């Protein structure tokens, strides 16, 4: 499928640098210079051939991809398993007394990531647990530790920020970076390099410094590709994994792409490849041999974007995230939750409370307010009910960024979903996933005050401010809201946290009492109804 994001600049005619561009770049340089440099000057300079400044005249975009990220983190945290096949996601196989694997107990997890040793056995991402157990029965199986991965991911992005302020994460383990205009700054790190060689090679040097800095600061290896646009940068980072490093100057792009297979190209999945092959395009060269005009005519946007990118056309970072329409958080339970038991409902509610706290934490970070809430319940048969409600008229809330406002609505939506909307069959199956979605986002805030709360409004906002600051420093889980404790307790049973505690010296600040007041939606009514 053609991807309009691939080349956001294609529509514009010539790439004349504008004054605004120049300003942006000088700002960019100043920002980059003012930050800590953290990387060491090391790798020698290798001549790839080049004729000076023109080698990288326009944009320089890098793509950074952490190698087998989750598996790598597991190896990092537990040296004993280094080099063994590591599979993150499903539990280890259960065996019969005779040593054979009991596949009926393999569960329904899927492989999140496997390291290269496991990939040698054929274990791939998104493979069901049973298949992984069959292919690699003696591998090291580890559960996903999202918080730990996020923590390291944040550290990696922080290292990136020492190199360029223009970073666009596109997932937990990869990001695009804008290296444009950093040649002079890089020059400062390599004062003795041959000018001609440097002019061609500086993006590779910078990428290599970045890779080394990440390695020395976090112990993680990454592959980095550099090119004039994202299309080339991504192909370059995939080129030589793991710990790959590849910079493709604009004029080398065409040759680089010609050396790849059609299926390697971004935007060319199995279906598209089949279609292209039917049309007689078997290699990237078949497309690049066309004129731009006929590439457009024969293959539409896809042809045009591949042709342009492969001819070294300037690109940009992915667009700043478009204005958000909603924020969702959901969670799949390790085991299906029974709908009929009080415990089951309490656990769902506790989980929703935690998810609401997370979603509103994101809202506050982005200075947005939500005016609608929906609750999603997915049953074990994968059928799903989503139930929404506007925070407007009936609740009189208007819009909010506080989970204390949202929870009463979430509670009601869950109750209505389970009592009125779900069929008996769905209820019998049990619940597999619950989620919260906040919609109607706006930077505009109108908050309907409640009776008796005028003094408490500021107080509550300041409690949120303090809580957010604690979470910013110590991670989201540093604080828990009273009503989500059940979910936290349950979670900690599935998620080993010894690494967090010992390695990071992280403080666990659980203060349910302190937050309870914040969490109580009806501050005014609380004291009168406590005896109910």
């Amino acid at each position, binding site marked *: 499928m053609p991807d309009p994001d691939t080349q956001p600049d294609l529509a514009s005619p010539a790439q004349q640098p504008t004054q605004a561009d120049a300003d942006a770049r000088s700002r960019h340089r100043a920002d980059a210079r003012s930050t800590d440099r953290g990387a060491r000057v090391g790798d020698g300079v290798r001549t790839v051939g080049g004729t000076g400044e023109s080698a990288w005249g326009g944009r320089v975009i890098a793509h950074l991809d952490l190698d087998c990220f989750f598996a790598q983190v597991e190896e990092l945290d537990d040296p004993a398993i280094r080099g063994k096949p590591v599979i993150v996601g499903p539990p280890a196989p259960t065996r019969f007394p005779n040593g054979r694997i009991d596949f009926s107990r393999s569960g329904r997890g899927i492989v999140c990531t496997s390291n290269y040793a496991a990939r040698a056995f054929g274990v791939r991402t998104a493979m069901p647990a049973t298949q992984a157990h069959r292919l690699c029965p003696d591998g090291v199986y580890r559960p996903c530790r999202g918080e730990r991965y996020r923590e390291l991911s944040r550290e990696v992005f922080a290292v990136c920020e020492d190199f360029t302020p223009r970073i666009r994460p596109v997932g937990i383990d990869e990001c695009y970076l804008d290296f444009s205009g950093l040649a002079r700054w890089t020059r400062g790190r390599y004062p003795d390099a041959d000018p001609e060689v440097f002019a061609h090679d500086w993006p590779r040097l910078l990428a290599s410094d970045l890779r080394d800095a990440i390695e020395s600061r976090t112990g993680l290896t990454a592959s980095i590709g550099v090119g004039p646009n994202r299309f080339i940068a991504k192909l370059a980072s995939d080129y030589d994994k793991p710990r790959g490093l590849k910079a493709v100057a604009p004029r080398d792009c065409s040759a680089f792409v010609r050396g790849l297979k059609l299926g390697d190209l971004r935007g060319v999945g199995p279906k598209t490849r089949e279609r292209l092959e039917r049309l007689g395009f078997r290699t990237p060269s078949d497309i690049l041999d066309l004129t731009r005009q006929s590439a457009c005519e024969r293959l539409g946007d896809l042809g045009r974007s591949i042709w342009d990118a492969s001819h070294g056309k300037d690109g940009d970072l992915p667009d700043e995230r478009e204005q958000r329409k909603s924020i969702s958080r959901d969670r799949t339970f390790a085991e299906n939750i029974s709908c009929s038991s009080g415990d089951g409902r309490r656990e769902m509610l506790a989980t929703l409370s935690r998810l609401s706290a997370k979603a509103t934490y994101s809202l506050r970070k982005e200075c947005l307010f939500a*005016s*609608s809430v929906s609750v999603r319940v997915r049953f074990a048969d994968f059928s799903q009910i989503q139930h929404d409600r*506007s925070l*407007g*008229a*009936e609740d*009189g809330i*208007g*819009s909010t960024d506080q989970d204390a406002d949202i929870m*009463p609505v979430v*509670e*009601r939506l869950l109750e209505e979903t389970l009592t009125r909307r779900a069929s008996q069959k769905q209820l019998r199956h049990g619940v597999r996933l619950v989620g919260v979605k906040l919609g*109607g986002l*706006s930077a*505009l*805030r*109108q*908050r*309907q*005050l*409640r*009776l*008796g*709360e*005028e003094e408490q*409004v500021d107080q509550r906002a300041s409690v949120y401010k303090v809580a957010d600051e604690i979470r910013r420093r110590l991670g989201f889980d540093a604080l828990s809201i009273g009503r989500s404790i059940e979910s936290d307790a349950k979670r900690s049973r599935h998620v080993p946290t010894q690494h967090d505690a010992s390695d990071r010296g992280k403080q666990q600040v659980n203060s349910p009492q302190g937050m309870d007041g914040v969490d109580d939606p*009806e501050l*005014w*009514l609380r004291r*009168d*109804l406590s*005896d*109910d």
Partner: protein
Amino acid sequence: MKVICDRAALMDAVNLVSGVVASRSPRPQLTCIKFDARKDGDGGAGTITLSATDAEISIRMSSAQAEVQKEGEALIPADKLRQIVSAEDKDPTLTLDSDGEMTSIRGADAHFKVYGYPPGDFPEVPDFPEDSGDDSFAIDASTLSTLISRTTFSTARENSRYAINGVLMRREGKKIEMVATDGRRLALAKASANEFTGDGPSTCIVPTKALTMANKLLSGCDQVRVAVTDNQIIFKFDDSDVAGAGGTVLASNLVDGTFPPYQDVIPKDQDKRATFAVESLGSAVRRAALLTNEESRGVRMAFGKDTQALKISSRAPEMGEAEINVEMKSFDGDDIEIGFNPAFITDALKVLPGEEVMIEMKAPNKPGMIKSGNDFVYVVMPVNLQ
């Protein structure tokens, strides 16, 4: 049981009692209306009595506009009965003839058979406790109706705090107060009873649905008697001629719970007062509300001391904005700008027809108060506009 009913009178009665019939219930009898036909002792036409309940609220009303040919009882599913009675619009009369659980309804050219349940299974509607020494009072129907309509609009809907889903009724001697709140606003209405029994102040929380139902039964009635027992409130509508009925009783369970201390939230130190004609303020707020939306629900009200005018403005992103100027009858205090949910204001103004209202305020983050005479106080929290 066999009765010949005036169709119009039957339809009125069935529509009224249907208001309390349970729509779904594990006890299917509760989805029915119970008919009880009795001949008069003096050989007159006789009366039929219709009863219905949803286990919380129950109602019993009688109608003399029927000719009882054979005494007896019947349980008829309410929704089918209502549909049949309203569809058989060619006939001035309908004949209801029941035998055990089955009732046949005959019009001029139609014959319906409807299966019900054994009449003995139906719960009794409580009688009004005459002279039992319970807490009770009599009040003008129009007064009670005003109390109800001035409060029920402020009750919470489906709130998990059940107490505020109902209306607090407090009586001390002849003085009666009713209070409703949804946590964002509070309405307090006062009136006097005609006569009462029972000492000391008494309070109870009445479900909103019971009051709405009572309000329907009040039209065409002069005086109502109200009794409060431990767990029930019972209304007896005297001289009722609703659907030609000879007397109607409505009983409801009370809401169990503690009502928030409403006196605490009624502000005592408001220092800005504006008076308006209800109609002009209501119209201005309604018009300003046209340019509000989900995202931007509040209207900004700027009270000017020098101009003696109120400027109401609203703004909805990507839609537009409105500004309405309203003349104030008087304004006392400093300039103030405060935001309100326009619906909260118009809700209150709707129940104050043709009167003058006073809005009292203190600060943009403090409650506003709408007053009308000494009998109505409405506290409304502002919208925090940024």
